[in-house]
């Protein structure tokens, strides 16, 4: 079982989010990435060519994933590491708990990892009495708040500076109550001091991976705070938790995709740290873990290969799609109800928890297409969301009233003569009723519209009837 979702209650979540003044005050931050990404893309003449190239690299890798996985595993083992395959969340959690228990771990530090959210790792560790400590600043903040990330690269984007100050005063009770925390730098240095102790006391460090390199058996993480490095270098055991599609053939391939990742995510040419790890510490290494484990999670990815949603596996988790999404901007990430928000979440969530549970998300899109326009991997997100709607329609999961309404409309739309007979008198009547005000504040069966907006009255006779009258010929 993956972590529980509230996705079926998406509409309620939306309502709550829209009425949460604190959240609404924080949400505009997500828009800051838009101009930065646009500038970064313009500054790099080969940006569009790189998108094509990155897509080709991933498509090739996914078409030969079995070979690259074997090659990768061989290289990890050669470097002295261990590779564990996990079919689902439970297996991944069990493997990680097993490694932690073998070392009698008390404290586990964690680099930022959405996959660890997907498998509910923190809760599982806490259940075993192991203290899990998030070390990414944003993740640390939301861990204090008992929340999940609301954005895949900026997990605490829904939180304001004032919230963080209150959280720190509540959590760090051994510090002077009258200390000055009015500046962001003061919050940062307080978090840094607290986390420094945790880094030094950790028995195991868990990180995700942005890339797993088949050529060398290397795992790569991309961060801006350096917390990932301390998480994977200081403890005796480093566990890399990643899903199958992170495999990338060569370092050269990684270098190309990296040029897109930072620019698409935050508008940075490169993130501050790009850290490569290959196996445990060698005899002549100045530092590094004694044990190096890779937990390779499937959780539905292999079943997606070669199917109608396979293109989703190209995703490199940059967050550009949600940074540009009007729905995400309106309600934030938590409303989506599971781990992955925004357009990428709207495609991925039904794949991972089923369309019956996750089906709201691909429906809650205007298909404005901005996500596809900025996706560095050229994933046709609206098209994939539409595919989910087709699945729902085929399986009769579409709400019965909506389905009946659609079929009735389609019946007429396919029969122009009947359509004309039905709509022409209706429009004339509606036009007559609405002429005086020009619009309706309320209309039967249109409450979904008129509750929020006025509805323009038709001009009366339809264009086609007027056209026929004008040209004097009825077809």
């Amino acid at each position, binding site marked *: 079982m993956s972590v529980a979702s509230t996705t079926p209650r998406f509409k309620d979540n939306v309502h709550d989010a829209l009425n949460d003044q604190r959240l609404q005050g924080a949400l505009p931050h997500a828009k800051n990435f838009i101009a930065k990404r646009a500038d970064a893309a313009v500054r790099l003449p080969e940006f569009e060519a790189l998108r094509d190239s990155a897509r080709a690299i991933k498509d090739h890798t996914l078409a030969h994933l079995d070979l690259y996985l074997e090659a990768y595993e061989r290289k990890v083992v050669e470097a002295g590491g261990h590779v564990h395959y996990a079919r689902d969340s439970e297996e991944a959690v069990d493997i990680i708990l097993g490694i932690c228990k073998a070392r009698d771990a008390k404290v586990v530090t964690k680099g930022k990892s959405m996959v660890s959210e997907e498998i509910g790792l923190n809760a599982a560790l806490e259940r075993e009495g192991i203290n899990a400590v998030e070390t990414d600043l944003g993740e640390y903040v939301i861990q204090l708040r008992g929340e999940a990330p609301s954005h895949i690269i900026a997990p605490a984007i829904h939180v304001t500076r004032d919230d963080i100050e209150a959280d720190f005063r509540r959590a760090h009770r051994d510090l002077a109550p009258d200390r000055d925390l009015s500046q962001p730098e003061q919050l940062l240095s307080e978090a840094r001091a607290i986390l420094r102790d945790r880094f030094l006391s950790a028995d195991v460090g868990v990180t995700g991976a942005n890339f797993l390199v088949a050529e060398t058996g290397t795992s790569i993480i991309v961060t801006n705070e350096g917390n990932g490095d301390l998480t994977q270098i200081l403890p005796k055991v480093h566990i890399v938790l990643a899903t199958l599609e992170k495999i990338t053939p060569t370092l050269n391939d990684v270098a190309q995709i990296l040029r897109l990742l930072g620019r698409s995510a935050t508008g940075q040419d490169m993130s501050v740290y790009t850290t490569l790890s290959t196996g445990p510490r060698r005899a002549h290494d100045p530092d590094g873990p004694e044990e190096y484990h890779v937990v390779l999670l499937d959780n539905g990815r292999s079943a997606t290969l070669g199917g109608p949603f396979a293109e989703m596996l190209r995703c490199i988790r940059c967050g550009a799609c949600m940074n540009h999404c009007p729905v995400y901007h309106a309600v934030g990430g938590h409303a989506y109800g599971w781990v992955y928000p925004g357009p990428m979440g709207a495609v991925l969530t039904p794949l991972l928890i089923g369309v019956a549970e996750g089906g709201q998300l691909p429906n809650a899109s205007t*298909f404005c297409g901005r996500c596809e326009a900025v996706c560095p991997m050229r994933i046709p997100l609206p098209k994939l969301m*539409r595919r989910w709607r087709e699945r729902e*329609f085929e399986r009769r999961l579409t709400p019965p009233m909506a389905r009946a309404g659609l079929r009735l409309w389609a019946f007429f*739309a396919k029969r122009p003569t009947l359509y004309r007979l039905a709509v022409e008198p209706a429009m004339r009547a509606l036009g007559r009723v609405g002429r005086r005000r020009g619009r309706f504040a309320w209309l039967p069966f249109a409450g979904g519209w008129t509750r929020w907006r006025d509805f323009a009255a038709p001009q009366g006779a339809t264009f086609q009837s007027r056209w026929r009258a004008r040209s004097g010929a009825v077809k």
Partner: protein
Amino acid sequence: MSESQAAKTQLRVGLFVTCLVDLFRPTIGFASVKLLEDAGCKVVVPTQTCCGQPAFNSGDRADAQAIARRTIEAFAGCDYVVAPSGSCAGMLARHYPELFADEPDMAVKAAGFSAKCFELTSFLVDKLGVTSVAARCSGVAAYHDSCSGLRELGVRDQPRKLLASVEGLSLVELDEADVCCGFGGTFAVKYGELSDAIVARKSDKIAATGADTLLAGDLGCLMNMAGKLQRQGRAVRARHVAEVLAGMTDEPAIGEPTEAEVK
């Protein structure tokens, strides 16, 4: 050139009027006809209903295919098919071939059809080389880029270029003009509260321009934005860009009463 030769070289353009324009605002259809005729085209209006997008985007592929087949058939005799909507033109020009991906014969036919489909302002500027229109309209207008036209068909500069030639009209840029208005077809009703939150932001941006007129190339988006502006009591009038370009602004603006403006 004799008249019969002129008739032979004259482009036969099928107007895909779109279901919303057909039902709600025929003025946009007649404005489109005028613009196309002024540019020297022979305009025909084959019997039509809808492009099928509501079915396509609701996952009802079979009905979308059936409607697409009919539409392709109905416009068989036209050199070009032009729609006063980026959304419907996008459906015809980009999504019809996709609908028949599993039927090779039909896919070829759909691709041929799609290649001759255009959004109105893009057809006038890109295909016919129109650079100006003979129209007058006093006021300050803000233009909203509807999503499908902008991102599927590259409609951005064409309407602005033509609007710049309208006498008496000054055009101001709308902040976030390329951000969705929250319409999204059936989305506006299925997710009414969410749609409202998005259009409320759009309404704020429109009001901030100080423009007295909102223009766009899609009636669906316009009805959504006009409906919100009116509900909020804002004094901005919404019109389709074709009405202004054709100088057909005598009719009341979208959702405005008839009496008040009748001269």
